[in-house]
């Protein structure tokens, strides 16, 4: 190399170091290029994706839930909004600026500025970069006032929250139901697609069962944001589809009347149209207030509702299971007639009791009814007659009929998820449940609606309606029509026939004559339900809660509340061409004819006289630490 070693600049080995310098340079550039290769080519896709998710943001546009209306189109549940004022501490500026801001906002919205400032202090450190809820429950006017001061309200933003607002929180709370945040199990189930954590869904009533219709479809928005999360441009949007509206079969007036008549007593009233099984009123008492659930229920309120010994959250009309008592004699008589076990003219002798083996089964009338045919057995509710019928029919045939033609022992699928099936016992059931054979003596209590037999008030209304319309069982329903947001009809719910009793029409007429006699003829047990000018038919029921032995020691009026009988009265009117079925259950309140009969009569009167209404709905009062209004002991 020509420049080596003879120039004065070179000392020994110096030029040789250029060799190393060149290699060091090549090494350094090799390192950089290989690093760039790794980042840009080997992992380029990954980083491109990372960068894309960095600056695009996906948000959901909330949709509006469908309305719920009664059968006349009156809105029962609507949507409303509440405004929240959000504060981003970092954008609001220095401490003194926030002080001034608090003063101004406090003055405009009528809040305490000092308190607002303290709140700001609270989230200044931990969450300085995110919007924090500063004020909740602002009105539209407040927002307007704040908007006019926009130039001096840095760091503030307004959030609109959709809210479900029942027009009257006391009105049919069990039927309508409330919304709640979706829980983990619901998130994972396939019933609720496209929902995410924090979404509100119906958690009871038709809000829950009609969720897919009411929900609507959320919109989506894809947008570009910068590093501070500010919106720069909108890439694509899908606008939300509002939910469908429900037109219930509920008649507001009947519902109000029923609820008012129940008052503070525990019980249920079902008003149904026997021609198409539309439920006109479904009252359950005690009840809760839907207003509590607006915008999320507080923990202590929820706890007090759940812990209440009277279970105000339970819809007694569809999920309360009671022994149906003597009202079951409707099922018994029709079943026995259709099976040919008896004819209307079959006569049994009632001596006040029936002996089976060494056990004596008593009639309610200790002195006995004497010779009883079908008409008298229904009118005077003779127990011995039905013991005899049950003995001849046998429990298995009875259960088969009750399930097939009266919808007992199974949930027919009314539009409420809490509907209970009740219980119709038979021999199989006994073996499965108790691992013991059926005793012939167990058939007799079942024949008069006691024993293992359980039915909900809705089921009692169902078999009353079957008797009323000549033997047709349909699916009871709460929803009449589903319309879209603009009122366009989407679906009309037609009555769905489940079964038809195979009975001689003459025999059926006799049964209905007997039921009419209960209310209209002298000696009938249900005369207190009479409505002037209308022929009604009905059947009383007094369901024992515990065995006779348990309260033999008590005086007649001195039984403890929980040992008192359930009072039933189920009726339809007009007797010859029925258009309404009314079933009343009053828990632990005594004889059916005496207690439930007048209530049913008033419901029927209200049905036929449009002018009868009640404005005496007991105003709801929040009682956070006590059970809801009802006193318990009567």
């Amino acid at each position: 190399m020509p420049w080596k070693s003879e120039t004065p600049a070179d000392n020994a080995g110096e030029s040789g170091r250029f060799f190393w310098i060149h290699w060091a340079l090549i090494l350094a550039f090799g390192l950089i290029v290989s690093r760039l290769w790794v980042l840009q080519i080997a992992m380029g896709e990954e980083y491109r994706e990372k960068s894309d998710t960095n600056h695009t943001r996906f948000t959901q546009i909330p949709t509006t839930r469908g309305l719920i209306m009664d059968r006349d189109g009156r809105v029962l549940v609507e949507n409303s909004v509440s405004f929240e004022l959000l504060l981003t501490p970092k954008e609001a500026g220095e401490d003194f600026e926030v002080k001034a801001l608090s003063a101004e906002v406090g003055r405009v919205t009528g809040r305490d500025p000092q308190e607002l400032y303290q709140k700001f202090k609270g989230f200044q450190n931990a969450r300085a970069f995110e919007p924090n809820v500063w004020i909740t429950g602002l009105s539209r006017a407040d927002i307007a006032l704040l908007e006019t001061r926009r130039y001096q309200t840095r760091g503030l933003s307004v959030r609109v929250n959709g809210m479900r607002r029942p027009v009257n929180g006391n009105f049919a709370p069990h039927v309508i139901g409330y919304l709640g945040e979706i829980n983990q199990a619901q998130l994972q189930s396939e019933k609720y697609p496209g929902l995410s954590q924090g979404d509100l869904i119906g958690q009871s009533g038709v809000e829950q069962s009609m969720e897919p219709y009411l929900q609507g479809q959320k919109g989506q928005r894809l947008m570009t944001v910068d590093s501070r999360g500010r919106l720069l441009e909108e890439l694509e949007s899908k606008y939300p589809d509002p939910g469908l509206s429900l037109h219930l079969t509920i008649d507001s007036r009947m519902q109000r009347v029923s609820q008012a008549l129940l008052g503070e007593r525990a019980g249920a009233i079902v008003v149904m149209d026997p021609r198409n099984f539309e439920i006109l009123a479904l009252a359950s008492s005690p009840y809760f207030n839907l207003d509590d659930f607006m915008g999320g229920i507080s923990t202590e309120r929820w706890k007090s509702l759940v812990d209440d010994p009277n279970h105000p959250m339970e819809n007694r009309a569809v999920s309360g299971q009671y022994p149906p008592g003597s009202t079951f004699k409707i099922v018994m008589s029709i079943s026995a007639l259709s099976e040919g076990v008896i004819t209307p003219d079959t006569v049994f002798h009632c001596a006040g009791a029936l002996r089976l083996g060494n056990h004596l089964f008593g009639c309610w009338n200790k002195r006995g009814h004497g010779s009883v045919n079908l008409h008298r057995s229904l009118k005077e509710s003779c127990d011995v007659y039905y013991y005899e019928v049950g003995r001849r029919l046998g429990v298995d045939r009875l259960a088969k009929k009750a399930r097939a033609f009266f919808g007992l022992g199974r949930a027919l699928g009314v539009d409420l998820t809490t509907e209970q099936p009740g219980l119709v016992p038979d021999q199989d059931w006994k073996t499965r449940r108790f691992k013991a054979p059926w005793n012939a003596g167990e058939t007799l209590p079942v024949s008069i609606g006691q024993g293992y037999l359980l039915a909900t008030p809705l089921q009692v209304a169902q078999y009353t309606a079957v008797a009323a319309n000549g033997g047709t069982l349909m699916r009871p329903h709460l929803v009449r029509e589903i319309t879209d947001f603009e009122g366009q009809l989407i679906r009309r719910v037609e009555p769905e026939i489940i079964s038809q009793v195979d009975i001689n029409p003459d025999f059926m007429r006799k049964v209905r004559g007997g039921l009419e006699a209960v209310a209209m003829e002298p000696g009938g047990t249900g005369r207190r339900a009479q409505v002037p000018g209308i022929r009604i038919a009905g059947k009383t029921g007094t369901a024992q809660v515990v065995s006779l032995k348990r309260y033999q020691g008590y005086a007649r009026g001195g039984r403890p509340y929980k040992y008192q009988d359930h009072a039933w009265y189920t009726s339809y009117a007009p007797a010859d061409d029925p258009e309404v079925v009314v079933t009343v259950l009053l828990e632990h309140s005594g004889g059916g004819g005496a207690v439930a009969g007048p209530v049913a009569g008033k419901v029927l009167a209200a049905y036929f006289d449009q002018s009868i209404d009640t404005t005496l709905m007991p105003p709801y009062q929040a009682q956070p630490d006590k059970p809801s209004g009802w006193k318990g002991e009567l």
Partner: protein
Amino acid sequence: MKKITLDRRLLENFSWPLVLSMLGLIVCGLVNLYSVTLNAPSTGSVSEFGKQAIFCGAGLALAFLAMFFDYRLLRKPAPLLYGFGIALLVLVEFMGITAGGATRWLPLFGVRFQPSEFVKPVLAILVASFFARDDYQKKGLTLTTIIAPTLVTLLPFALILREPDLGTAGLLCLTVLPMFLFLRFSRALLITIVSVTAGALIWVFLLGGLDFLQKKGIIHGYQIDRILTHQKPEEDSNGKGWQILQSKSAIGSGQVLGRGFHDGTQQKYGFLPAPKTDFAFAALAEEWGFVGALVVLSLFYILLRSAIGVARRSKDRFGRYLALGLTSLIFWQMLINVLMVTGLFPVVGIPLPFVSYGGTSLLVTTLAVATINNVGMRRYLFQERPLLENSQAWREGQPTLRVQEKAPLVRRLKPPNPQEPDVFPDYRLPHTKPWLKFMGRGKPEISPPEP
């Protein structure tokens, strides 16, 4: 009529690759800056792009002027410049502007001036002037001769470390390191260095010296943090590691061809930290991809290769060391910045020469390249047999810019062939066709004359 003429050999020795690659880098930097500041709100009357362009013009003009003066003029006032630089650093201590927890800037006519930028090249000049002395050449580095250059390095190092600016302080040491390594080390010195280094490592890592340094305030906690974050950037994706992650996704998302001019989403939407200054390379790699990054790196390679070539061919010891020092200054800045941006080095505030926004840095690096070129241009002044080889040798020491009354009329029947070994036995002319060098057909080797 007066005519200004330059010595022809100045132009003959002019290193075109060096200067052209620098111009290329400056253009790349301006294009990148334009993209980055395109929709940024302009502050003041002149946009940042405008400011940088003005600085470019000023830097290039200064560099052009500097080429007319012999670089050896720097040798004598080197201690003076150094003293001035140290004074500025001391002044920073007392009246510096504090920003981001560090006091690094001096107010100068309303703009912020960073004295450490100035000290870096001055230190290189001073150390070069030391090493050009005969005793360094004769004895190499010994226990005694190493003291003075080490001390002059450590003084600004300590001052800059106090600002605190670990990055620049470290860069200072790295800049002079190749100059030290170019000298021969005596055996005693080697043994001393090895034992002192081992002792220091043991003290720091085994005997708790790190805590001691931190307690005394010599090293700051955040500096240690920064090095620790570098090792695990994913653990702290919102804090210090965030910058590295964003920078890596910016570079990576560029892929082969890049997102295109002004389409880099990382820099456009503010995810990339400091896309104008420290992370300019990341913005560039995002928008121009692997290809664009490779172009910039190639320009750097050409620049550094030719600068080292200048040092290698220089026959003046001062010139050689000066060129080496300034080359190493540019090299280390480039290397550290690119490694930092690609996540291989902790985040320290060192800009990418020519590309990053920043007036002082641009001026200093441009002048550094001009000085390197100056060394190369004037290598003809040092010849073995000056009068024989160089008829102009008697002019040594005179300014090369001369004003003639009248251009001398030279007539030759046949122009002398510069490659004729009889005429210029030892003199390597610059390439008349420089690209031939890269195509494997260089000039024929000229063997040196027998001594």
